[in-house]
């Protein structure tokens, strides 16, 4: 205890100069397919300048940005500095980000390939390529450091299919009841989906939080930051920020890009 007291005494002087910076909620892929940082806090958003153009898909963990262009999968830091880039065929990608950004996964549905970001580069994850041939993969997620999860639409059902990263084998498949597309599973295990009254956040313990909203007829969901999901209206291009942090849930309008 004396040792701790001593340690905290040192703290007094060391904390004299806290670091201050604009808070960042995350990144969004705007209607012109540029990647933009979103600064601010809930209810007070400012869009930053585009840091990358020609984006087809993107996701942000809070420390790592994964994005897909027409020809590459790219990992960048928060400032948009490219950490690694890998050639990839055209088309969108699905991303899964573990809580601290590593590991992270990129799935290219057009070629049924899965890649893992392991902090310094991308590595292909071999898995049973026949698993999803007849299915539609809605999103992927990283439930833990050893698995990648696939949210799959099979017939009229949504399934949570887990693949062990080291073996590439599927070690669990579970039907997710009461959830319809579009839906997103986050690293926390939370499922974000829509119902007739708005959005629903189904926690890992199966409890649900309902966010009443008039949702557009067609929209997509993507992870835009730690505790934040971007909802993009296919029709108008309007974008919304969905806060999924427990106890702080809410839907906010993001400023338009063409401003």
């Amino acid at each position, binding site marked *: 205890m004396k040792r701790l007291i001593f340690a*905290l005494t040192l703290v*007094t002087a060391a904390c004299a100069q806290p*670091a201050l910076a*604009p808070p960042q909620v995350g990144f969004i892929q705007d209607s012109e397919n540029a990647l933009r940082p979103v600064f601010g*806090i809930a209810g007070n958003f400012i869009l930053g300048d585009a840091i990358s153009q020609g984006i087809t898909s993107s996701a942000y963990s809070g420390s790592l940005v994964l994005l897909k262009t027409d020809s590459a999968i790219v990992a960048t830091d928060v400032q948009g500095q490219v950490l690694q880039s890998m050639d990839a065929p055209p088309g969108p990608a699905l991303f899964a980000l573990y809580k601290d950004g590593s590991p992270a996964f990129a799935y290219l549905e057009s070629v049924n390939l899965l890649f893992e970001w392991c902090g310094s580069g991308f590595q292909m994850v071999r898995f049973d390529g026949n698993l999803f041939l007849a299915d539609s993969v809605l999103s992927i997620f990283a439930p833990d450091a050893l698995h990648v999860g696939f949210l799959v639409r099979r017939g009229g059902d949504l399934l949570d299919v887990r693949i062990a990263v080291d073996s590439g084998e599927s070690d669990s498949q579970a039907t997710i009841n009461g959830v319809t597309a579009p839906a997103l599973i986050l690293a926390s295990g939370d499922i974000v989906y829509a119902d007739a009254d708005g959005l629903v956040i189904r926690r890992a313990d199966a409890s649900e939080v309902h966010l009443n909203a008039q949702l557009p007829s067609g929209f997509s969901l993507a992870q835009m930051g730690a505790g934040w999901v971007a909802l993009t209206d296919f029709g108008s291009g309007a974008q919304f920020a969905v806060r999924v942090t427990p106890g702080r849930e809410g839907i906010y309008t993001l400023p338009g890009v063409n401003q």
Partner: protein
Amino acid sequence: MKSRLLLATFFLPLCAMAQIQVFQFNGTTETPVSGLFNVGSATPGDTLNTRFRVRNTGAGPATFQTLSLAGSGFRISSQPSLPYIIAPGSEAEFRVDFAPTSTGTYTAFMLVNTINITLQGNAVPAATLMLEGSKTPLAAGAVIDFGPLVRGGSKLQGFMLLNAGSTNMTVTSLAVSGTGFRGPIGLTAPVQLTPGQTASFQVAFEPQTGQPAQGTLTVDNRSFNLTGLGLDPPLPSASITLASTLGASAQQNSVSVSLASVSQVSGSGTLTLQFRPSVPGVSDDPAVQFLSGPKRNASVTISPGDSGAKFNGQSSIAFQTGSTAGTITFTLTLPSGTQQTSLTIQPSPIHLDTASSVRELGELDVSLTGFDNTYTAAQLSFTFYDAKGAVLQPGAIPVNAATPFQQYFASTQAGGTFALLAKFPVSGDTSQIASVDVQITNTAGVTTVQKIPIGN
């Protein structure tokens, strides 16, 4: 040689005069005039205007040299400045008014260069037309202007027919024509009038469009011009309505424009948003903006049947209140006028949106995000606890962060928002530290977040 030249000079005008011919022109057709010409009939008090043309029918230029008129009831109302050279095939025009003062036959003698024409006109009795309440007869062709009137409305003008003669007369025709005009109301032809007798009727102006309107009131052979100006009704008065009147920072709100009544017309205007910070030295907060379209200028449109203005087809437009204390002013500008409403963002204690703490190697990191809408954050205090909830010595650790906050707010474009990272180097076992309280102070108050768990 000299005498021959004088002779040529003398005869040249005569030759030129011989080339001209006089016509009566009705607007489309020329009719040759010579000798006696009857201009027609007019009622005493009216003016009958006749157009004449002097045409050069020769191959060379002709001079229109002389125009004179002698006789009562007639006068030249317009003519070119004489002498007037008329090119071959061309013409010059002059007009003669026949304005009799009493009934009977009128004669006048008109000379055009060397052409003598006898003009004749007949003055015939007719009912005198007067505006209701007036004793002044209206001349044929007079303009009765109903003035401006909002479309859909109706304005009546009263008229009175008077037999000013000494014998009975019959008005055989009384009619109103022209879009937007209706009548005669209250009187139908034929109308028998004894000497001195009057008969009243009305004409209604009922414009259906916001356009000028023209019509004709015909009394027997006399026509009177009816005019009026149809107007579109004005936009209903408008008012700005905020979905929430909560004057706080970091709020997403919406604004709409209500109309006092359903609009009958279309219109457009703008709704602008202005922000005046109350924080000294701060000129703006970029986060105070509309959330769609231009940041601080929204177009509003109103269509017939609308009870509120539309913003790009929507009944309201969302905006956010930023993170700086001050006043947001909305100004609505429509053709019908300008409206303003304001939302005051009061200074408030610091709002913390997130607070977290993690153990790092040899240190504890405490992260806060939030906003200080006064830009006066100064004093921080951290109190660490062990797993049993006991305060770790030395207790509350004060940190004066006024300078870094001032430097940050002076340089950032993020308004009053901030992300703060406080690092606490620890040489001991950080696992014994379980939570931390954070207290942060600005001029509006003190904000405390208790028992932030220390994560790994």
